[in-house]
C-alpha cells in the first residue's frame, strides 16, 4: 500500500530561525503516527506545511503519491487533509449541522439552503463516529470534547484521508479521552492515517503505532512504538536521559506564612477553606477540574475577594480586596492561562517582567528603561529563558519560556507566598523538569508555595503536603508522600481502599 503522505527533506526558515532543517516524514494508511518534540522542535511548522499554511523552502511533499506544488489550505483540503486543533474553530452561534455544512458545501451564492438535508447528513456523520450530539443544537452549548467530535465529523464528511490532531486531549476529562480514543481507533480501522500530536506519553503508548521525534528542526528518528519505552522515548526527545525524579526538599519548613480560616467567597463558590502554608513548603492543591482550586487562588489574589473568613499573612490578618493589595502583602499568582492572563503576548518580555512592580522600579511613575532591562537580563539568565533578547515580544517565545516570563514577573515582586496554577501545562518535557527545579529552589529560598496541578505525578512528586479540594472546599489534607490512589480517591470523594 502506498504511503498516504510522504515528506522528503523539508526545510523552512523564518528570518534567521531555521524551523525545519530537512525533515522527512511518512504516513501510512490505517496507522496512528505520533509526532513528538519539545516546544519549538518544529512540529507546528511541519503541520503548517502539510496543511498548506506555509510553503517549504526546499524539499518535497507527496500526498497520495502526487507531489504538491501549490501550498495553500484549500489545496490541502482538496487533497483530503484535515486538521483538528486544540481549540475547535467552530461558529458558536450556529448549529452543529450548519457548522458541518459550512465546511463541506461548496460556497456558492444564491443557492437554496436545505436545512433538512443538512441535519440529516450531520446526524449521519455524527452517528458514524459514535457521537451522541443533536445536530440542531447551537455549538456554544456543546462541551469542548463535543466540539472536537464535530470537527472530526467534518473531517470524515470531507472524505479526509489524513487527519491531524494537535493535542486533542488537553482539555478533556478521562471519560471524554476514552471516547476520543475510540473514535481515533475507528478512523484507523477505516484506513485513515492519523498524525497525533501530544505531550502525554501514556496516550501515545495507548494509541499510536509509530512515532517520529523532532528536535531542533530535525527528525531524530521514526520508530515503531512496540520497540520503545517511556524513558527511551524521552531520551529521544531531549537528546539526553532526563531524570524522572523530582527535586527533593532539604531541611524543615519555617513558620506559617499563609493561614486561611474558614475562608469563603459566595460569588465563586469557595467556602469554609482552612489551610496553613509554611515558608519553604510546597503545598499541592489537587482535585478534579471544577473543584474550586483556581477559584480559591483568585480569592487569595483578590480577583474575586473573599466575603467570609480570614486570611493571615505571617500571623497578621489582612484584607485582600484586589490584586494590588495582594501584591502589596506579598502574594503572587502565576495564572493558569498564560496566553491570556500570564503574559501580554504583544509586549516585550522586559515590559512583561516589570509589570507587577511598576511602583518599585519606576519611582514617581517615570519609566527607567535601563533598570527594566537590567531586571530582564537577570531573570533571562537566572531562569535560563530562551529569547532573542529582553525586547522580544512574549508571543515569540515557546510555551515553557512564556511560563518562565510569567514566573519572573512574580518573582520580581519578591513575594512571600507564591501561588502557581498549572505551572507546567502545555510545557514540553525538558522545560517541565526545569520549572520543577525552579519551584523547589524558590521554596528552598523561603517562599511558601501553593501549587495547583491536575498532573498527578507532578502533585505527588513536588508537594510536601497535598490538600485535596472538592466542591469548593478542602476536603482532605495529606501529609508525607501519599500514593496516587489515595489522592485520586479523595478528589473523587471516595474512601481510600
Amino acid at each position, binding site marked *: 500500500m502506498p504511503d498516504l503522505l510522504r515528506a522528503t527533506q523539508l526545510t523552512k526558515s523564518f528570518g534567521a530561525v531555521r524551523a525545519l532543517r530537512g525533515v522527512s516524514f511518512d504516513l501510512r494508511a490505517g496507522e496512528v503516527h505520533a509526532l513528538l518534540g519539545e516546544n519549538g522542535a518544529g512540529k507546528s511548522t511541519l503541520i*503548517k506545511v502539510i496543511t*498548506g*499554511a*506555509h*510553503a517549504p523552502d526546499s524539499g518535497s511533499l507527496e500526498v497520495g503519491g502526487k507531489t504538491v506544488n501549490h*501550498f*495553500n*489550505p484549500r489545496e490541502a483540503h482538496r487533497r483530503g487533509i484535515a486538521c483538528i486543533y486544540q481549540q475547535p474553530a467552530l461558529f458558536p452561534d450556529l448549529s452543529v449541522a450548519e457548522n458541518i455544512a459550512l465546511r463541506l458545501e461548496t460556497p456558492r451564492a444564491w443557492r437554496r439552503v436545505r436545512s433538512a438535508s443538512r441535519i440529516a447528513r450531520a446526524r449521519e456523520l455524527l452517528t458514524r463516529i459514535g457521537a451522541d450530539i443533536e445536530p440542531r443544537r447551537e455549538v456554544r452549548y456543546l462541551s469542548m470534547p463535543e466540539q472536537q467530535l464535530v470537527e472530526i465529523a467534518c473531517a470524515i464528511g470531507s472524505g479526509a484521508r489524513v487527519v491531524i490532531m494537535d493535542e486533542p486531549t488537553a482539555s478533556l476529562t478521562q471519560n471524554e479521552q476514552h471516547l476520543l480514543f475510540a473514535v481515533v481507533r475507528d478512523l484507523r480501522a477505516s484506513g485513515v492515517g492519523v498524525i497525533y500530536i501530544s505531550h502525554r506519553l501514556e496516550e501515545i503508548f495507548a494509541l499510536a503505532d509509530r512515532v517520529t521525534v523532532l528536535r531542533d528542526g530535525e527528525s531524530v528518528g521514526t520508530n515503531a512504538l512496540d520497540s520503545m519505552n517511556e524513558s527511551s522515548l524521552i531520551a529521544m526527545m531531549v537528546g539526553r536521559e532526563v531524570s524522572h525524579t523530582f527535586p527533593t526538599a532539604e531541611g524543615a519548613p519555617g513558620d506559617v506564612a499563609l493561614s486561611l480560616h474558614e475562608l469563603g467567597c459566595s460569588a465563586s463558590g469557595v467556602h469554609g477553606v482552612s489551610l496553613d502554608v509554611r515558608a519553604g513548603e510546597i503545598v499541592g492543591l489537587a482535585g478534579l477540574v471544577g473543584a474550586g482550586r483556581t477559584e480559591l487562588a483568585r480569592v487569595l489574589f483578590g*480577583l474575586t475577594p473573599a466575603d467570609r473568613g480570614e486570611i493571615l499573612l505571617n500571623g497578621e490578618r489582612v484584607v485582600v480586596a484586589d*490584586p*494590588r493589595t*495582594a*501584591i502589596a502583602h506579598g502574594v503572587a*499568582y502565576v*495564572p493558569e492561562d498564560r496566553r*491570556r*492572563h*500570564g*503574559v*501580554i*503576548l*504583544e*509586549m516585550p518580555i522586559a*515590559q*512583561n517582567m516589570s*509589570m*507587577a512592580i*511598576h*511602583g518599585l522600579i*519606576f519611582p514617581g*511613575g*517615570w*519609566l527607567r528603561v535601563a533598570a527594566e532591562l537590567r531586571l530582564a537580563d537577570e531573570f533571562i539568565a537566572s531562569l535560563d529563558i530562551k529569547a532573542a533578547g529582553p*525586547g522580544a515580544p512574549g508571543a515569540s517565545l515557546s510555551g515553557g519560556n512564556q511560563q518562565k516570563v510569567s514566573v519572573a*514577573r512574580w518573582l520580581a515582586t519578591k513575594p512571600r507566598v507564591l501561588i502557581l496554577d498549572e505551572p507546567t501545562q502545555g510545557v514540553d518535557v525538558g522545560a517541565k523538569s526545569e520549572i520543577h527545579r525552579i519551584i523547589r529552589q524558590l521554596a528552598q529560598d523561603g517562599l511558601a508555595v501553593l501549587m495547583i496541578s491536575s498532573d498527578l505525578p507532578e502533585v505527588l512528586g513536588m508537594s510536601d503536603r497535598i490538600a485535596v479540594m472538592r466542591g469548593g472546599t478542602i476536603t482532605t489534607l495529606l501529609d508525607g508522600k501519599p500514593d496516587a490512589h489515595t489522592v485520586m480517591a479523595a478528589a473523587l470523594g471516595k474512601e481510600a481502599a
Partner: protein
Amino acid sequence: MKKLWLRHEMILLVVLVLEILLFNAIGRRFLTADNVANIVRQSVEIGLLALVMTPVILTGGIDLSVGSLLGLCAVTFGMLWGELHWPPWVAATGAVGVGAMGGCVNAALITRLRLPPLIVTLGTFSLFRGLAEALTSGTKAYTNFPASFLALGNSFFLGVPVQAWVFVVVAVAVWLLVHRTTAGRAFRAIGFAPEGARFAGLPVERRIAQAYVLAGAVAGLAAVIFVSRVTEARANAGIGYELAAITAVVLGGTSIFGGVGSVHGTLLGVAAVAVLGNGLSRILSITAFSRELSGILTGALLIVALAAGTLLRRAPGAKGRGRSG
C-alpha cells in the same frame, strides 16, 4: 524593532512632505507666514482633541463625546463670563473643570457600570450637545469678549500664533505621559489585554478613568481656544470635531483595537489632514467646493495610508507565498 522605513510614521511623513511640495508648487501663496499661521490656528483645537484621544484609543476605547463636550464647555465659558461676570481666565478654568466633569461621567459609566465606551460616549455625545443647546435656548451666542482674551486665538507670541504655544505644552505633556510613564505603559497593556493587565495587578479601572477625564479636561481647554479664535461662544462649537480627531489619531498609526500607537504619529496625522484641507482651499477658488473635496480626500488619505502601511509590512513575508488562515 521594525525597520525605520516600514514604520507607519515614516509613510505619513513622506505623505506630509509630498502634500507640502505639491501645494507649494501649484497653490497660491501656500508657504507664506500668513498661511502657515492660518493652518496652525485652524488645527489647534482638533489637534488638542486628537492628542488626548490617543491614550483613550490606546486603552482600546473611544471617545465620541469630545466634540459635543467642546460645545458644552464653550457655552459654559460664555455664561460664566457673560452672565456671572467672571474674568475670562477664571471662566476658562471653569470651562476646563466642566470638561473634566464630563470626562468623569464617561469614566464612571465605563469603569463602574462596565458599559462599552462606544455606547457610553455615543450617549454623552448627544447629551452634552443637548445640554449646550438647552443652556443657550439653541440660539444665544456670547460675544464681545475683551481684546486681551481674543489675543489667545488671534495674536502672535514670538512670531507664532499664541494657541500654538498651548498646543506645544499639551503635546509635550501627553507625549511624556504616553511614552515615558507607567500610566502610558498601562494604557498599552490594557489595550492589548485588559484581563492580562488586571492579572498583572495594574490599576486598570483607574487608568481608563484617567484617560477619559484627561480627554474631557482638554476638550474644555480646546473650547476656550475655539471661543477666542472665532470670538463667540455658542452651542454649535466643535460639531464633528470628534471624528476629525479620531481620523487624525488613526491616520497617525494608532490601532483602533488599542495597544499600538504613538503621540508623534498623531501629530503627523493632525498635520497631514490640516495641510490637505488648507492646501485644497488655496488651489480651488470656489471655497464651498474645496470643503467637500477636502472631505473626500481626507477619507481617501486615511484609507490609502493605512492600506499602504499594511501592504508594505506584509511585503517581505508575502514572498514566501503562504498566508495562514
